[in-house]
């Protein structure tokens, strides 16, 4: 199981901020996860792939599509808006 976090408007689209995700393989490519989510929901899938969405794995922003293991936390983050 990996944990998916959907922040900001992505949480509204995903129906919640947090969700458990059962990995098809012990080491699943991040791209594969995005493909699965895209098949479930095309609108959410497009938003997650949007270049303005940053992706963090275990709290670190990633720019390469690496592999995800059990217990990893994947955060999908639309543009920040603090202050």
């Amino acid at each position, binding site marked *: 199981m990996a944990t998916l976090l959907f922040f*900001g408007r992505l949480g509204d689209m995903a129906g919640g901020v947090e969700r458990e995700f059962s990995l098809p393989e012990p080491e699943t490519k991040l791209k594969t996860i995005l493909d699965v989510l895209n098949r479930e929901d095309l609108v959410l899938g497009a938003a997650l792939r949007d*270049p*303005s*969405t940053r992706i963090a794995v275990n*709290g670190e922003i990633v720019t390469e599509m690496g592999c995800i293991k059990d217990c990893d936390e994947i*955060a999908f983050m*639309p*543009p*920040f*808006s603090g202050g």
Partner: protein
Amino acid sequence: MSGEPVSIKLLAAPFDPGRALSEFTAAHPDAGGIASFLGVTRQSGANEPVQHLILQCYPGVTERAIEDLCRTAHDQWPLLGVSVIHRYGTMAPGDPIVFVAAASIHRQEALAATEFLIDNLKTRAPFWKKEVTASGSRWIEPTLEDYAKTADLHPAPQGFKNARR
């Protein structure tokens, strides 16, 4: 006592900015100048009164991003200390959202660091803001203008479109 160089607080409950300034001032007795900025929840959205504002953060990751900004400020200017207090959760109009302060021997550094911190908190710290009005709610994203202020350090995400304002 001489204050820590970086003080960061993420708070779920309202805070008193006057007290924050007093405490920061007391913690830095060698400062010649203390600059600060207070951001307040605005009273009205696009056209109607704001009922409340919801600010989401990413616990742990948000603190670390703010800490990075504070360290960058220390690298850039000779500062005695910086403080960032940031609310999250549900806020009422008029509630303080963010308080930034910087202490230095001479005034210029404190002023420059305060401006740097608040400009960068807008676009570089993981927060997401939702405005709730009588007719519904909407997520607020930074404007291209916000990104322009910090473009040297952190350009707008690729493909970013000016969603609003």
